């Protein structure tokens, strides 16, 4: 059983499990699934700075912080008890492309050659980690949600603004992966 769980899980197992988060949170307490909101709750809790956007009763949303602390814990548990000893298998064309940028370490969830503390203060490291994170935080709030809030929760409730947001997420992603990232990493 444990050996079986250690293998990578197929999409048709994982996807429905992720989807079940929606009804589980609703049934547990009328909570609407969405993770980027926590970034805002962090601002509201720690640095409201007299900005109206951060002046709300964040204690009412602490449930969501429990959720992401859990997700962090899930990452620890999965690596501790269910780690797959084999490196991730990706499409050969991607392996080829990344090899051209000197990325060939597939042992972690993130490319170790880019995501490490030594690399952080290099130009590329700053652009990817600090710049990328900033875009994620700014963009998700500007859009009013991220992949969980719009693409899963919003689409589950058939809200067309969430479809617009999801299409834009994908356009941005395609542009970065195919046009800008080769320049940044090249």
């Amino acid at each position: 059983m444990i050996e079986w769980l250690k293998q990578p899980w197929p999409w048709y197992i994982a996807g429905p499990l992720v989807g079940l988060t929606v009804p589980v949170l609703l049934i547990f307490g009328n909570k609407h699934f969405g993770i980027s909101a926590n970034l805002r709750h962090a601002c509201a809790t720690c640095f409201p700075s007299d900005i109206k956007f951060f002046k709300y009763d964040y204690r009412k949303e602490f449930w969501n912080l429990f959720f992401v602390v859990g997700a962090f814990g899930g990452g620890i548990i999965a690596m501790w008890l269910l780690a797959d000893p084999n490196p991730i298998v990706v499409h050969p064309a991607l392996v080829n492309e990344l090899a051209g940028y000197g990325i060939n370490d597939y042992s972690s969830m993130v490319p170790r050659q880019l995501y490490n503390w030594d690399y952080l203060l290099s130009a590329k490291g700053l652009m990817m980690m600090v710049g990328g994170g900033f875009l994620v935080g700014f963009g998700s709030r500007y859009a009013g949600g991220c992949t969980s809030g719009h693409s899963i929760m919003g689409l589950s409730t058939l809200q067309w603004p969430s479809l617009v947001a999801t299409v834009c997420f994908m356009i941005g992603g395609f542009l970065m992966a195919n046009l800008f990232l080769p320049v940044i990493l090249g």
Partner: protein
Amino acid sequence: MNNSAIKQTDFEIRAQDTICINESQLQHKWYHNIKYLIVGILFGIVFVKAEVISWFRIQEMFRLQSFHMYGIIGSAIAVGVLSVWLIRKFNIKTIYGEPITFTPKKFNKGQIYGGLIFGLGWSLTGACPGPLFVQIGTGATVVAVVLLSAIAGTWMYGKLRDNLPH
């Protein structure tokens, strides 16, 4: 702002630019939140085991080299649509007996501009906000910097919000 002023505008501001809010009117002790911690743990495990939090899988997705991520997102939405439909059809209540409510979201241009900005960041970091927390748990500690930067980005949005096109 004093407490009564916060109470008056709380829902309006809390619901601004977000899908995800607590619509429950009930007040509970903090330990009622432990159930969300457990859902979060299971969610984190699924994300690791299905490699959703892998930078490499995100790169594959945006190069159309694999069906994996599309399968996950697609089947998650299918299960979500079906369960929300069932909740509405059978008027299912929460475990506390409260009705489950849905607040429709209005369209604004932020969903386009913000969506594009978010998409660029998602592909660059290989992570949307959920995976950031999980990645740190898997031992990629430097991702904490990405997370802090995302919080800084959110703060900057809050600061500039009234001057941005919506």
